């Protein structure tokens, strides 16, 4: 197994229920020191609950977790000294300026007034907030607010950072800016656990992706491996009748296509393309069976496809 110097965040069998509803059904995670793990899942899959347990804000019903070598339940104070958290809800003060926010948090880390000022100025600069430093946060854009939130998490220069859906609700440009900042943090040696609902975000940033669904990790692998597993592109074919649909399903299955998804309501069939030639082979098979295809659609896989593939395989 891993040792604590190699693994910055380690969770084993975390469970949590809220009033009879099981939110986590045994989550296992290991994030190697200095790497970024993306926890990918839809709303309600248990991402935030996992983060809250690992950041000492919530106690697990069962299971254990260590962060920076400290048990989150037994040594919460030691864990807090090692981590920074950017929660989903805004955790900066709207009525204060960006500078006042960071100086307040630095002060609460007890770094001394002069050091607090120096660090604040450095963080404002690093996160591109120098010009807005003395404006109230209520005048900030969504992207600026997230960057300030991230800066606030970095005040004590934590070795481990938790980012709970840091780019949800941001426009594409703000998202790209935040990605740049996250890559820089990673390059400077910070270990990061990031949750997201976007496959693309996980792909852009993470060395490894853990897919969470229904309070359980359903897959964990390198982005390339996961993507290969779910295919590069989705091919959707619309057929003219339910009979054709089931016939087409049988023909393609016989031809070696696994992971077919038949949508009877829309009379559509979806499969994952392994390579460009796969498209021609599939159409040839249907042509050979005299099945007319009404419409052909190609698209990149979405999170829905990931879940369909992973839960179907399980």
């Amino acid at each position, binding site marked *: 197994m891993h040792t604590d110097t190699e693994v910055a965040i380690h969770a084993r069998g975390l469970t949590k229920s809220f009033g009879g509803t099981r939110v986590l059904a045994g989550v296992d995670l290991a994030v190697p020191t200095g790497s970024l793990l993306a926890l990918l899942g839809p709303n309600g899959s248990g991402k935030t609950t996992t983060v809250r347990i690992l*950041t000492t*804000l919530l106690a697990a019903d069962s299971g254990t977790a260590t962060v920076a070598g400290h048990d989150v*339940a037994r040594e919460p104070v030691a864990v807090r000294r090692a981590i920074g958290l950017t929660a989903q809800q805004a*955790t*900066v003060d709207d009525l204060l300026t960006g500078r*006042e926010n960071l100086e307040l948090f630095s*002060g*609460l*880390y007890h770094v001394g007034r002069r050091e607090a000022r120096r660090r604040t100025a450095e963080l404002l600069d690093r996160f591109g907030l120098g010009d807005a430093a003395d404006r109230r946060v209520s005048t900030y854009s969504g992207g600026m607010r997230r960057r300030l939130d991230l800066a606030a998490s970095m005040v004590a220069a934590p070795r481990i950072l938790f980012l709970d859906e840091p780019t949800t609700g941001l426009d594409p440009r703000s998202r790209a800016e935040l990605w740049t900042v996250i890559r820089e943090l990673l390059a400077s040696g910070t270990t990061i656990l990031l949750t997201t609902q976007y496959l693309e975000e996980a792909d852009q940033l993470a060395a490894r992706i853990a897919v969470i669904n229904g309070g359980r990790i359903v897959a964990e692998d390198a982005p390339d491996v996961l993507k290969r597993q779910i295919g590069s592109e989705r091919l959707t074919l619309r057929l003219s009748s339910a009979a054709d649909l089931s016939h087409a399903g049988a023909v393609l299955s016989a031809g070696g296509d696994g992971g077919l998804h038949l949508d009877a309501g829309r009379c559509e069939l979806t499969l994952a393309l392994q390579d460009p030639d796969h498209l021609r082979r599939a159409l040839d098979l249907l042509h050979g069976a005299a099945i007319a295809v009404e419409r052909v659609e190609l698209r990149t896989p979405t999170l829905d496809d990931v879940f369909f593939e992973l839960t179907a395989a399980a």
Partner: protein
Amino acid sequence: MSTAIATTAGDLRRLAGRALRHEARTPDALMVNIALPVIIMLLFVYVFGGAITTGSSGLAYVDFVVPAVLLMAGGYGAALTAVSISREMTGGMIDRFRTLPISGWVVPAGFVVASVVRSVVATAIALAVAIALGFRPSASLAEGALVLVLVFGYVLAVSAVAALWGLFVRSTQAAEAFSFMVIFFPYVSDGVVPAETMPGPLRGFAEHQPTTPIVEALRALLLDQPMGNAGWLSAIWLTAAVLISVPIAAVLFRRRTVR
């Protein structure tokens, strides 16, 4: 140990400073905070004042009512602590504070400290308005100091109970209700009309509820009225309010932030 106390005191100062900044930056709330006691003072002195007799005290109405209005002025602002704390507990900031190496209770305590500062100032403004309207206190320096202690004790007690309320309720709307309770309490006391003019059960309540001895003690100190046991009763009420609400608030805070 002493460094731990110094550290916590520093945290409390930072968080109280933040809460006071909030005050300064919400001018609408600040205006209400200052204007309300002034309006109440004008209302009682000029609208109701002519029709109300001050009973056996023999005081001019402005003199009679000022202590009660001082409590309304200080109490209203202090009661708003419930709203600040409730908002903090339902927002995201509390999560950030809880991941910092500070004691969690410092967060509500910071609001209480800011509330005491703000409410003492609001009371002082109300007193200045009263003097402009013809209120002439005859307090000595020592009596003036005791008035300050009493006002301080009152706003601290109301802030502490408000903190308890703010941690107990789950919405800011419910937290706001506390301000109304606090501002109307002095109405049914010996503060606005003499309790002796009220019907039986109400009079019994008015004579035994906590703001009555506080009003009477303020009158005694400001206007050379007989103190009787009003001073001791006030001290007991205020001390009890703080000593009872602080531990309960601490328990509620722990429960709200339960891990």
